[in-house]
């Protein structure tokens, strides 16, 4: 096994492969930063370029792109509240408030190191899990997906502590939005009002761009000034302390990486779930949850670690059966097919060099991209000093046109504008945006998998507890719901106990 790992690196360490890796990384950073574009877009664009290349070189390029995209996305998320890619929307929640306080450097530094550590942990997990990859993928079916989705939804609800009622309201709103579209499990179009564009539902990336980028730009242009507003000086030199923050909060990094790894290994569940779930669980585990959303550095570390860990483990279903675990993987497999390879369950045995090469390329690119991100922090952080009258039109232009670029549908622009308005109203009237996003992403998944499970189980709910993993997850849900209540009950008891002891002693 070890020699296989090493042979993967060896193939990479040729000049040509390294050059293509760097090229991929640069492209990944740029495409990650621009909202609406992303890894799968960059890879699809580069496909013709790979025609004449050796498979291993094509993989170095692909890995370069995939590893760098999250870092690019986190930079715009932090500086402009604009998620470069959908999962980076979670980074906006605390990253942008930090930028507003003039601490953009701190945030980007933390993001860079969280990226790197998450990526490394993701890679190690993939390599460790490869022998049981097939069994792992086969263990999760519609019943498990349904319970996981419910778990995700509940976690987010319980994490909006202090805003439970409004969090649940926006969560329900997100669910309502997720039901729009054609659903072939229950049959028929719902809530599309006859609009063809809505057949596939409300497109997620345009909605997120609106909810975060446009909403914040409306807010900024109303407020005036610049992003870092009244902050006396932009703390660019705090970049290295940002890097160190990640190590200080090592439980957060580990938790984020673990969540990212687990979520990434499940095919069909995206990076958005990984990052938002990681964020929510960190909030829940924290001693002062109210500080989140206002510039808590852990709110940057948690999602960033999860995103990069997820990229590594998204390879698992792809490697187990040659079946893509996401859009980027689909394009990557397409590149393999173009080179005459036949991805299938035998991919691990037949194409070992290529696969290990990819894994190492991914990891290397992730580390390099973080480093590059750190190098450009100084000039980039200056963006937070630009006056809103110049910044807002620029960002709006990029955001709306980027939204169009997702799949060249002009209706995306309308969706972005509407969600921008919605997002602004939510900021204005203090309704959390976090729960809307998670609900939008998980709502459709939950309903779909529920009905699939019902067909599988012939309408009996027992299917959710007769399968071991699903049963464990159900127990987890129960625990999650019951635990806070138990804690609340236990507090007066412990207080009385302490009082009695004091009184007695």
């Amino acid at each position, binding site marked *: 096994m070890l020699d296989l790992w090493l042979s993967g690196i060896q193939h990479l360490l040729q000049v040509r492969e390294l050059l293509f890796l760097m090229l991929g990384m640069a492209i990944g950073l740029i495409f990650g930063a621009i909202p609406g574009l992303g890894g799968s877009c960059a890879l699809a664009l580069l*496909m013709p370029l790979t025609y004449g290349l050796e498979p291993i070189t094509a993989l170095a390029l692909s890995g370069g792109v995939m590893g760098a995209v999250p870092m690019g996305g986190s930079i715009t998320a932090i500086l402009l509240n604009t998620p470069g890619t959908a999962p980076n929307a979670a980074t906006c929640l605390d990253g942008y408030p930090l930028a507003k306080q003039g601490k953009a450097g701190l945030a980007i530094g933390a993001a860079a190191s969280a990226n790197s550590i998450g990526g490394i942990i993701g890679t190690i997990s993939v390599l460790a899990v490869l022998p049981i990859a097939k069994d792992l993928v086969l263990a999760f079916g519609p019943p498990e997906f349904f319970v996981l989705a419910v778990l995700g939804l509940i976690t987010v609800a319980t994490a909006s502590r202090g805003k439970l009622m409004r969090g649940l309201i926006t969560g329900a709103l997100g669910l309502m939005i997720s039901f729009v579209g054609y659903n072939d499990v229950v049959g028929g179009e719902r809530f599309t009002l006859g609009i*063809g564009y809505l057949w596939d539902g409300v497109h997620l990336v345009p909605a997120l761009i609106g909810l975060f980028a446009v909403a914040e730009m409306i807010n900024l242009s109303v407020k005036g000034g610049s992003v870092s507003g009244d902050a006396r000086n932009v703390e660019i030199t705090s970049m290295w302390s940002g890097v160190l923050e990640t190590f200080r909060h090592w439980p957060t990094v580990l938790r984020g990486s673990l969540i990212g790894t687990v979520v990434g290994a499940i095919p069909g569940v995206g990076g958005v779930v990984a990052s938002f779930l990681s964020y929510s669980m960190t909030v829940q585990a924290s001693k002062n949850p109210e500080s989140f959303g206002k510039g808590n550095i852990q709110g940057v570390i948690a999602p960033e670690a999860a995103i990069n860990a997820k990229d590594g483990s998204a390879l698992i279903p792809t490697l187990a059966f040659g079946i893509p675990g996401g859009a980027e993987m689909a394009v990557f*497999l397409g590149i393999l097919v173009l080179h005459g390879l*036949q991805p299938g369950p035998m991919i691990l045995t037949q194409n070992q060099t290529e696969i290990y090469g990819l894994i190492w390329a991914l990891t290397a690119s992730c580390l390099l991209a973080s480093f590059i991100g750190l190098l450009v922090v100084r000039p980039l952080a200056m963006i937070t000093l630009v006056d809103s009258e110049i910044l807002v039109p620029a960002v709006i232009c990029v955001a709306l046109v980027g939204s169009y670029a997702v*799949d060249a*549908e002009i209706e995306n622009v309308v969706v972005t504008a509407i969600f921008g308005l919605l997002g602004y109203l939510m900021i204005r009237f203090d309704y959390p945006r976090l729960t809307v996003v998670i609900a939008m992403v998980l709502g459709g998944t939950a309903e779909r998998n529920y009905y699939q499970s019902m067909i*599988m189980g012939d309408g009996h709910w027992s299917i959710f507890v007769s399968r071991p993993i699903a049963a464990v997850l159900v127990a987890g849900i129960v625990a999650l719901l019951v635990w806070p209540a138990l804690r609340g009950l236990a507090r007066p008891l412990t207080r009385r106990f302490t009082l009695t002891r004091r009184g007695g002693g």
Partner: protein
Amino acid sequence: MRAGTEFHRREFLLATAAAATLGFVGRARAAFPEKDIFFIVPYAPGGGFDTHVRAIAPALERMLPRMVNVVPLNVPGGAGSRAANQLARAKPDGTTIGVFNIPGMFDLQQEGKADYDLTRFTWIGSLGRDHYALAVGYDSPVKTVDDLRALSRTRPVKFTSTGPSSTAYAATLIAGEVLGIRTQLITGYKGSNDYVLGAVRGDGDAVITVLPTLRRMEEGKALRIIATFEAHGSLPGVPDAKVLAQPDLALIILERLVAGPPNMPNEIRDTLSSALIKAMADPAVVAWAKQADVELQPETAAQAAQILADQEKFFQKWKRYLTSG
């Protein structure tokens, strides 16, 4: 002297104008291809159709009378209807063509939900076809088609499948009908491969999908093929349509037909058609197809149009079994 110059100038202008007009008309007539050609793929990048187009595009560029770029354009959404609509509305000057999943694409049209009419597109050729086959989990107790029939007598047999508008969906329902198996479809899988993974996992009892995918799955001991719908089976020991005495099964085929917008001029259609056929004979493409286990099947424009008509009749015939839900 002035009069003379003016006379010359007017003549000159007239002559120039005449030459320009003639040249313009001449150019418009013989100029195909002049601009880049967009090749519409109705799915996201990385899928089977997408890779086919990308594999053939470079050869296609070389086989056209003039080198222009052939740019794959992904137009996913609406289960292919977005792409069909876009092609229907494009200019019929050869700058936009597309590949479609036939006969699956007829589903929306038959239900009256489409803004396009596939029979009015200008059919240019084909990128190839796939046959279907029936498979079960590798360790499934079901070993033959008869076992499935026996199972079907006790309860409906569960098949994992994609949604309507894919040929696999139609294939599953039609095959069930032909083979006398009561089917219950588990749909809702997100991608074209997720339902195959579902079959491996055991979400359902069996799955019907294209042969190359099932061959790979069998090679990896994930699924076992118990019947192929080819007229003459390519797999030893596995019954084909002839053995099963169901010739209709062999008519269930996934065709990747290439079309241009309605009313494309014949010369442009023929240029594209012959370039496509030559591209599929290109040694690099043939080598790729062999390695990637892809069946290339070039067709002339006339043959493609005929295939479409046949598939439409076939789909019509089975329409009553294909109601969604």
